[in-house]
């Protein structure tokens, strides 16, 4: 007897589904399709907040506000979260906003250091003046509390072994009074922790970039204004990427490649600390710096096609289930 179509659907081998999923994801990725997302209010709010800090710093050059970017994720979620930290840092450096970064996990120290310096290099940011990397501020809850008074007492040295009191940036920005925004990019429940301590106890504004898996957990904090904004998953990253690209075009222009190529010249006599980054870009590095400007949007094209594939699978499976039950009832 011939197997009915619904039985075939219901007993489809998982391996076939995986292979089709692979193809569905790969086509947009290889064709380099990009997705143009509509920017959601919760993402735009983060952008506006950073623009607000920029405006404040323009009118108060002697008492600037900085942002604290906390890398609260490990490499296992970097596919979703790296584009967020990159976009936030690009925005901050483009607007000359002082940046403090640190990593909440021991296994993400290298990741946090690499991304911070990678983006700083694109804007000729000087270590110690424009940005600092504080390493792994263990234990995190003590570090968050230490920021309430003077973080330099808790983090005596930065990641590179410089005394905190020797870093010009930390002499201006060493407690919450001079932090305009805390951005926690996380694949865990760390944003809740930041809200509990930095927002509830010190009234600091918190923005989060989170993996899609955790996003639903944090919406209640948006509704109560305990968080000012959220980038949820790759989609949130793509939205912020789009906003930063528009700003980059306004400030730098269309030709980012040319801008990066001419950023450092051999006659540059600025004392670059090569321990932090070496000035100049090789062709390979240039290609990478350009491609990271649309990582999330390229990924979202694959994401959209995989969603479409899963919707089709859900409809087919439900139809199969429905017809199978109907056939059984008839019998």
């Amino acid at each position: 007897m011939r197997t009915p179509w619904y039985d075939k659907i219901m007993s489809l081998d998982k391996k076939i589904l995986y292979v089709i999923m692979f193809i569905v994801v790969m086509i947009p990725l290889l064709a380099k399709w990009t997705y143009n997302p509509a920017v959601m209010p919760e993402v735009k709010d983060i952008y506006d907040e950073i623009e607000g800090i920029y405006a404040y710093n323009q009118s108060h050059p002697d008492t600037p506000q900085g942002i604290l970017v906390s890398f609260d994720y490990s490499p296992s979620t970097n596919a979703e979260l790296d584009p967020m930290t990159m976009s936030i840092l690009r925005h901050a450096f483009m607007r000359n906003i002082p940046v403090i970064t640190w990593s909440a996990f021991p296994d993400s120290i290298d990741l946090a250091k690499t991304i911070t310096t990678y983006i700083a290099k694109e804007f000729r940011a000087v270590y110690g003046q424009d940005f600092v990397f504080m390493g792994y501020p263990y234990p995190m809850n003590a570090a968050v509390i230490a920021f309430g008074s003077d973080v330099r007492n808790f983090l005596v040295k930065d990641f590179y072994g410089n005394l905190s009191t020797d870093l010009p940036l930390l002499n201006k920005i060493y407690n919450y009074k001079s932090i305009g925004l805390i951005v926690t990019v996380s694949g865990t429940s760390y944003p809740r922790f930041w809200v509990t301590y930095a927002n509830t106890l010190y009234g600091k504004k918190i923005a989060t970039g989170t993996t899609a898996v955790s996003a639903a957990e944090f919406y209640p904090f948006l509704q109560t204004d305990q968080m000012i904004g959220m980038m949820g998953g790759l989609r949130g990253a793509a939205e912020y990427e789009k906003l930063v690209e528009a700003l980059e075009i306004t400030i730098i222009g269309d030709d980012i490649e040319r801008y990066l190529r001419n950023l450092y010249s051999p006659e540059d006599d600025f004392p670059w600390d090569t321990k932090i980054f070496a000035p100049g870009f090789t062709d390979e590095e240039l290609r990478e710096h350009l491609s990271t400007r649309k990582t999330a949007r390229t990924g979202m094209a694959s994401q959209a096609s995989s969603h479409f594939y899963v919707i089709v699978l859900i409809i087919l499976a439900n139809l199969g289930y429905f017809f199978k039950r109907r056939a059984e009832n008839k019998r």
Partner: protein
Amino acid sequence: MLIWYTIAVLLSLAIFSFLWKDNPLYKFAEHLFVGTMVGYQVVVVFSQIIMRKIVDPISVALDNRQILTLISLVIATLIGLLFLARFSRKVEWVSRYPISITVGFWSGYAIVASFKTNILTQIRGTVVDDLGQPLLNGHLIGDFFKNPSLKTLDLATAGPLLVFGVIVVLVYFFFSVKHDHPMVKFANKPALFYLMIGFGASFGYTFMGRISLFIGRMNFIFNEWWPLLKQTIGG
């Protein structure tokens, strides 16, 4: 660089091979990952905690002759070392002192903040919106009837739907009353509806997250490793 990238690609493929079935390649990659992570963390803990949190502050305090800071750092370090007493059955009890200090301090510090963050402010968010207007706002409903549009409908219904949802879901999980009580019976269906929407949103996001990880790996293989390989081979 190509060598490291190639190793990363091979390990990624070894992990993905689990989708076919469990195999020695997958096991090898898994064990390698766990071993590398442990080794890496040991080094990081030494350089970022022992050195930065004990050795550096003590040496700075010594250099600056900050006696009080030095004393407090040494006392704190000694109390912290008492944790290690757990390794000996004879003096294990000593480790309860640092544990009691830690638990005592953090309980005191966290209780008020957690209560305010997760309960008080959230309850407030169920009563008023971020502008301080009540969520059950008759004016907004009136505005909808005066000027019916999607926007006014959204403004008029968002608050009441949220309040209603919170109440019925709370009633659904209220197990002190039998579920054949008329109030509970009334709340059951809409509560399930709200819960299903919540689970659906979570599932959608979870799926998106998992696919993002896969896309990230594929992006690495085809847009980073492959061009690098072509460039290296092609000179």
